[in-house]
């Protein structure tokens, strides 16, 4: 079992990611869509499941950095609890989007079997060049201790 101080984790609430801009290129969308088993979308539309990695990378962080922030150690130490993804506009290739977000909740919890974990929640908003909202994600991860 990996001990992580609860107060250190709770102090992550309010942590902001660097933020930034990012585009989704055609090759990336093509490969992503292919991974899902779907046919390629028409025109320049992006597969909606891009809302997992694109906001993380666009906000200037990464899965590895999020694991480090959450002091994750060992295989199977991270579980997905839930996603809440809102789409205000369709995502399109080669559009520069703005990304801003951070950690919004952390809670030390115990599973039904008594295992300690931290519920780690982060949220990122996407907007276009006019500032209009494009999408918002809120991801709940389970960091097992």
């Amino acid at each position, binding site marked *: 079992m990996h001990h992580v101080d609860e107060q250190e984790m709770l102090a992550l609430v309010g942590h902001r990611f660097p933020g930034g801009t990012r585009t989704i290129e055609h090759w990336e969308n093509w490969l992503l869509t292919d991974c899902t088993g779907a046919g390629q979308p028409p025109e320049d539309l992006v597969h*909606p499941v891009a809302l997992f990695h694109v906001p993380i990378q666009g906000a200037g962080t990464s*899965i590895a950095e999020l694991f480090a922030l959450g002091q994750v150690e060992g295989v199977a130490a*991270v579980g997905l609890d839930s996603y809440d993804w809102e789409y205000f506009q369709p995502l399109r290739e080669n559009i520069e989007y703005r990304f801003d977000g951070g950690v919004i909740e952390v809670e030390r919890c115990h599973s039904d079997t008594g295992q300690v974990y931290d519920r780690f929640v982060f949220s990122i908003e996407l907007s276009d060049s006019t500032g209009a909202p494009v999408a918002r994600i809120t991801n709940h991860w389970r960091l097992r201790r």
Partner: protein
Amino acid sequence: MTIDVGTSIPPWEMPSVDPQRMKTMAAILRDPYPIHWDSSVGQALGLGDRVVNQGPLNLSYIVNMLIAWQGPTCVRRLQVGFGAPVLDHDAVTAVGEVTGIETVDGEQRATCAVRLERNGVAVVTGTAVVALRTE
């Protein structure tokens, strides 16, 4: 076809989850978690020589069902929870049904209960809000 509360969404099937696609997905996501691409890690976890499908890929099968039903720009919101892991070569099916209809900003939207099932047991469950095609 009229869509109303209780309407079933045509299912979308992934007959065999492909571990090669997990490797490509890991590269796209820049995901360092080896359970998705290194089968020796699966052995350490008691999964045999199998690897674990990424959560976003599991969700993507539900999205594919919605897009096949109402078009590529139909998804307005996805709220899903993840249960048991999906492993390579599993057969999974996305299913769903309409639980509500409302008009938002002049757009008719369906709220749908959605699931990803393996052998009839849900491994992802949640709610999707979908803009309905205009006739």
